[in-house]
């Protein structure tokens, strides 16, 4: 699963720390998410998408 977190974070002018604080996770979790080394829970995916005012499938790209 790919994601657009890094791109959207830059667009919204948010640091990894800012995003981590908004979704109440550690900064390391955002780092792993951006590197594609961790698939978030549905709740975390929803929380992140909500920060960017988008749907989950717009932020997280599921590959067949």
């Amino acid at each position, binding site marked *: *699963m790919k994601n657009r977190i890094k791109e959207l974070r830059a667009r919204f002018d948010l640091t990894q*720390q800012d995003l*981590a*604080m908004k979704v*109440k*996770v*550690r*900064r*390391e*979790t955002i780092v*792993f998410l951006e*590197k594609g*080394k*961790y*698939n*978030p*829970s549905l709740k*975390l995916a929803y929380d992140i998408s909500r920060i960017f005012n988008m749907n989950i499938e717009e932020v997280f790209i*599921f*590959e067949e």
Partner: protein
Amino acid sequence: MLAIAATMVVTGIEIFQVEPVDPFLTWKVELLYVIMLTILFGLGLVLLSKRSRDVKMGLATDDELSRMIMHKSGSVTFFSSLLIWIIILFLEVHTNIESRLLIAFAIVTICIVFIIFWLIFNFLGAGHEKQD
């Protein structure tokens, strides 16, 4: 992590109380234990300072990934411990090392295995479920 540190300290007391069967071996085991404890203490200090910095910044200190890493490390450690106990059983039968020392050594080794895997998963990532 606190439980791991406490276990290592208590086990250490046991190691140092064992009567030396082979003074050279006991000396080596004690030295190894002191080195491991120093590394653990240093690691604990680093983690504590990071945690207090995160708290000051208002960041979460525990989340779904950290819990997953903890569970995964625990799982790997459990399966490793089975192997460790078999080795200890073999050493108990084929060497004259005191049983108390062997048990203490097994407990410390299990703690070390947990710490190593916890560090590996923390730095390299815990991976994730495959989407088959």
